[in-house]
């Protein structure tokens, strides 16, 4: 019999594929925090205390084990000169890219996470949430990888072309972004985070070949993860897309979990459990594009039950989660149902 665990211990145990009292739940809630707290997304994205209040409200209304205090893709990019557009109730938008031609990659500089862009918002939010909630929740903010960040500072179509036409220039930019991302993660960890949701969003077959991802993605991902002071693996990789390069990502060190869209990609939870279940903690099971946003709590419960049966039959190595950020329009009772289903069907002492 496993004694009741707090959320942090539950998440740590799951990530090391150890025994847990029940399957943990990751909310993947970013700007839905603003909705939950009754704030405008604009103020939520620019004020760490408001982000903290919004995330705490989201936690109180849902009870998830992992919070991801984050707002948008511009938190780092704005520091590199990307112009943003802020509107009251919308996620801030990348409005004008900083890298407009290949020679601009070398003009990027290494950023100070406490000063540049809006990285400070997440850092302050982490500190604030930890002070208020202690061990009751695990904190894993979203941090984009260097290649993902490249597509936040430059038009994605241009980045894809630079992979073939201007690889040297792109590599210069990726190196600069790598240094910044390492500093950002360290600042997040110093503020009290447990790890990060490290977004390797371009590691998918419909975007890059494995060879391309190895050269422009993996190389820098490994550098980031291996450079961190903390090396206990409490980081979760996040990959969008329908054909994730799971084989590459599962081989990373210092990242014990992978979150992916198992309901929409070519790798189901069941298959991932068979192929990678002894190597890495699987983070998924709930479809954020259909079930969570379009259906009622009963459908969420059924989907969670099915996912738990497929990915958590041995009582370990899985975190129940949507496959990507949830829409701010997602009914909170559906997120809460994920936790209820975890309590009902996801007991670990089996």
């Amino acid at each position, binding site marked *: 019999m496993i004694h009741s665990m707090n959320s942090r211990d539950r998440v740590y145990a799951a990530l090391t594929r150890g025994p847990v009292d029940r399957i943990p739940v990751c909310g993947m809630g970013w700007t839905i925090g603003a909705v939950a707290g009754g704030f405008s997304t604009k103020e939520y994205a620019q004020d760490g205390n408001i982000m903290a209040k919004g995330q705490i409200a989201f936690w109180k209304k849902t009870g998830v084990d992992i919070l991801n205090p984050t707002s948008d893709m511009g938190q780092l990019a704005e520091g590199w000169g990307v112009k943003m557009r802020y509107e009251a109730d919308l996620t801030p938008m990348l409005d004008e890219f900083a890298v407009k031609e290949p020679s601009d990659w070398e003009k990027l500089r290494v950023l100070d996470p406490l000063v540049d862009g809006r990285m400070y918002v997440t850092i302050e939010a982490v500190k604030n949430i930890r002070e208020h909630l202690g061990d009751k929740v695990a904190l894993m903010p979203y941090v984009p990888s260097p290649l993902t960040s490249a597509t936040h500072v430059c038009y994605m179509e241009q980045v894809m072309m630079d992979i073939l036409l201007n690889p040297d220039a792109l590599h210069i930019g990726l190196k600069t972004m790598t240094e910044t991302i390492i500093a950002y993660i360290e600042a997040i960890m110093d503020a009290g985070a447990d790890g990060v949701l490290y977004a390797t969003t371009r590691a998918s077959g419909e975007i890059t070949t494995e060879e391309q991802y190895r050269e422009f993605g993996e190389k820098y991902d490994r550098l980031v993860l291996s450079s961190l002071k903390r090396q206990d693996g409490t980081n979760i990789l996040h990959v969008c897309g*329908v054909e994730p390069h799971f084989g590459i990502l599962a081989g990373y060190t210092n990242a014990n979990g992978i979150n992916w869209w198992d309901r929409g990609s070519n790798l189901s939870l069941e298959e991932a459990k068979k192929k990678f279940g002894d190597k890495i903690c699987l983070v998924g099971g709930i479809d954020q594009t259909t079930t969570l946003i379009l259906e009622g709590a009963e459908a969420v419960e059924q989907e969670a039950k099915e996912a738990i049966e497929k990915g958590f039959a041995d009582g370990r190595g899985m975190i129940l989660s949507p496959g990507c950020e949830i829409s701010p329009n997602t009914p909170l009772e559906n997120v809460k149902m994920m936790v209820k289903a975890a309590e009902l069907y996801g007991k670990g002492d089996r």
Partner: protein
Amino acid sequence: MNEEQYKMAYECVVNGKVGEAQKIGEMLKAAGVDSKDVGKVLIDAMNVVGHKYREREIALPQLILATHSFKKMLLPYVMDTKGEAGTVVMGVVQNDIHDIGKNLVVGMLQVYGYKVHDLGKDVPLDKFVEAAKQHNANIVGAGTLLTATMPELETILNKLKESGIKEKVKYMVGGAPITTTFAKRIGADGYAADAVLAVEMVAELMKGNQCYLAARQEKA
């Protein structure tokens, strides 16, 4: 078009030689090659590129270069485009600037003979309706990459209905988080998982059918 011209145009697109494409297009036009013949070779080339992409022999970087190459090669002929295959209005919904997929679909449809009115990205929702009326469109297409802006796709459909033109146009949706389930749920006539499948889907819509072409792995 002689064999040498065909080979030159074909290889330019298949190999994504974007720097040479417009010059080749100008040479072909100056040599009196008809736009339909250029279209045919571009379709041959894009069929190969599309097949390689579907089979994942290549990925997005090569697909984008090939698309840019054929668009540049067509530039000298673009004024002659009559859109005999049909007229399409397309854009990415407001508050979303991710237009890479939309651009690929626009390029592919142009090669396949459609007149495409590209509204761009971050498009106010009313503009889809206005443009459909203005250009007497057969098809209206809207896309988004963000889960946050997915509901806008249904709003556009409602606006098309409210304006009274839905009976005249088919409505298609697309984007990374969009699925057949979502498309059917909101009442869209068409959905395709990528730009290559989109050509097939649009052809079905032009016949008056509904069509949903999911990625190979999507659940039913």
